[in-house]
């Protein structure tokens, strides 16, 4: 993302709360050229700054806070901000396992949680801040500088993208889906030695949502799957051919060590609340059984598995208009805990 596009970001205010000085200053230094940035190392100071910003009628657009602060928990800051009914967006950063906070995250509908590790990139923090504040959320190009995205008419004769290239294909039927899944799996296997089972799991999950679960009639019934009453199961139609309005885009490509898979559908049927709920069901342990509730059925397991297997999954949702699921996988980067990153406008 070239800097010149961001001249008008200077009107937005960000508060960073973090008690490790180097992290605090690094984020501040990186964001300063674009936004108005305040930084503090304690929750008490953060409260004062928030109060002052309200009195000046210029509340923060985004608060980025560590969870484990030396005086109090960053989770308390979330409650304080919610109590004041501010429109301030909240992003949490932590070195703990996000899954430990999953119930809080679900209840408070926290959509951005980033984990601290040596691969955390300042650019990713910037993109998160930019997307949260501006509502300009779609597009893989935000994450990777100088990446080229090709759509069908411009695509070269080959189906194999070079480094820093992403190819897009339009899926109009089950046959399209099967064909492209096979092709993409093979390309990823040949070029980056990605196991076919992993690529297939990811592609099946993101396309199943775009193709089978999302398209519905006006009365809410599914277009391309049936409910079998006796067993309460959903069975997809055979040989699905999508109506023009239901066709969706699948993108695949590479950026250095990163493997990029994206699915864009024109439905916007997923919601932040539902994604967090599904993750919660498969992560939080039920106090009675000691097992996650999600084990008893398959509802939402796909989203959970995507997050478990990939380096990062980003959901971009414009309600009833568009869903974009960005799957990023970096076999060289070993990230201890996964982020939560759901943008909804």
């Amino acid at each position, binding site marked *: 993302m070239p800097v010149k596009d961001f001249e008008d970001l200077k009107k937005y205010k960000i508060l960073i709360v973090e008690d490790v000085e180097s*992290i605090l200053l*690094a984020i501040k230094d990186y964001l300063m050229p674009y936004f108005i940035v305040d930084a503090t190392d304690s929750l008490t100071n953060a409260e004062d700054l928030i109060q002052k910003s309200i009195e000046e009628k210029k509340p923060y657009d985004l608060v980025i806070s560590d969870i484990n602060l*030396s005086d109090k928990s960053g989770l308390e800051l979330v409650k304080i901000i919610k109590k004041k009914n501010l429109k301030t967006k909240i992003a949490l950063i932590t*070195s703990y396992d996000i899954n430990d906070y999953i119930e809080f995250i679900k209840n408070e509908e926290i959509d951005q949680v980033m984990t601290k*590790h*040596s691969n955390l990139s300042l650019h990713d923090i910037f993109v998160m801040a930019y997307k949260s504040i501006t509502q300009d959320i779609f597009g893989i190009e935000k994450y990777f500088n100088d990446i080229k995205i090709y759509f069908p008419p411009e695509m070269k004769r080959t189906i194999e993208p070079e480094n820093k290239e992403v190819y897009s294909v339009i899926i109009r039927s089950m046959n399209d889906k099967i064909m492209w899944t096979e092709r993409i799996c093979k390309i990823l296997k040949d070029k980056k030695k990605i196991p076919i089972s992993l690529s297939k799991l990811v592609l099946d999950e993101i396309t199943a949502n775009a193709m089978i679960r999302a398209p519905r009639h006006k009365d809410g019934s599914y277009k391309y799957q049936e409910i079998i009453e006796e067993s309460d199961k959903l069975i997809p139609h055979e040989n699905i051919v999508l109506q023009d309005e239901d066709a969706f885009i699948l993108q695949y490509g590479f950026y250095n060590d990163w493997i990029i898979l994206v699915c864009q559908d024109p439905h916007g049927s997923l919601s932040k609340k539902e994604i967090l709920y599904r993750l919660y069901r498969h992560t939080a342990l039920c106090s009675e059984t000691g097992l996650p509730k999600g084990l008893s059925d398959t509802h939402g397991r796909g989203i959970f598995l995507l997050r478990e297997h990939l380096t990062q999954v980003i959901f971009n949702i414009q309600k009833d208009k568009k869903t974009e699921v960005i799957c990023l996988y970096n076999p060289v980067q070993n990230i*201890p805990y996964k982020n939560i990153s759901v943008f909804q406008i």
Partner: protein
Amino acid sequence: MQINSQNLFDYSNDLIFAVNSSRKIINANKPALDFSGKKKRKELEKHLCYKALFSRKEPCDFCNIFDNNAASIKNNLNNSFEISIEEPDDPVGRLRYFNIKQHIVYDDENKPVVIEVISDITRYRQDEEEYARNSKLIALGTLIQSVAHELANPLTGLSLTLQNIEEKIDKEVSINSDYIKNKIRLLKTDLKKTSHIISDIKSFHTKETYEIDKIIIYETLRESIKEIKRIYKKKLKIQFKWRLGKDYQISGNKSKIIQVFINLFKNSLEAAEPESTVTVWLIGRMANDSKSEDDKKFLEVQYIDNAGGISGDIISRIFDPYFTTKKGKSGSGLGLFLVQKILFEHNAVIETDSRGKHTRFRLKFY
């Protein structure tokens, strides 16, 4: 069938037998008979206990209830002790554990008779060992998790600071030397933190060997108090009550025990509001657990402070490594973890509870 005392006797799982003052068996129950390998009770009765039961030529080493010279029983002795013997055919030489109780009773002619009850407690001991092993694994798991979290902070700091510098160079912005100096300071701080964490882990897991002696616990506590008063001067008031012999000894390492109490004192002082005076009540007494089956007594040192108390939601975590509430001041989060570790090595446990502004630690030396 008539139920007499012999039947009751025989139904016990324990070996029960009676021995007169010349160590000859008067009566034995069926488990004792089975244990001896003899077929009839007559083969036991009137035979020497160590020969008939344990196939030994000499009296058992552990048995001190008989006065050898006078062929009599030492009066007023009720013994209860544990022994372990190697399992005879076990290839790895596993031990079997027995609890032996010896009670003196008097027969019709008022002659002393020893009733001996031998219980096989191997299973109980094995469970205990397994429990200790599991506890250690759990503690290790907690430590690893804490270390991973603890390392994530400085590593992220290092990485982000380097990204700052890299970005400045990429953009060919002229970098002023103060900026670089400040970033280098931050890098150094994070590096130092990383190496501290690593040396901490090393000190936990290279098993420190130290001498175990008989130490007079009262004196050790006195020394701890002297030491802490030397460091903290007036801010600490200590009420020291000793309700047992001042020469009471435990097996342990003096400087390690002093370290335990200094850490507890420091913990109280650092938890308290600055400039306030903390009172500590230190009470030594003999106690027994209602939980344990025999009324075995042990030394309990109660340490009570009025430094503000610990809230219920965190009290279970206070012994976890790196857990601290001390607002980034002096707390490393390792003080109480260390206390627990040293006590563990001394076969002692520490329990805690808190009410209002008071916190109580109970140190039980078994």
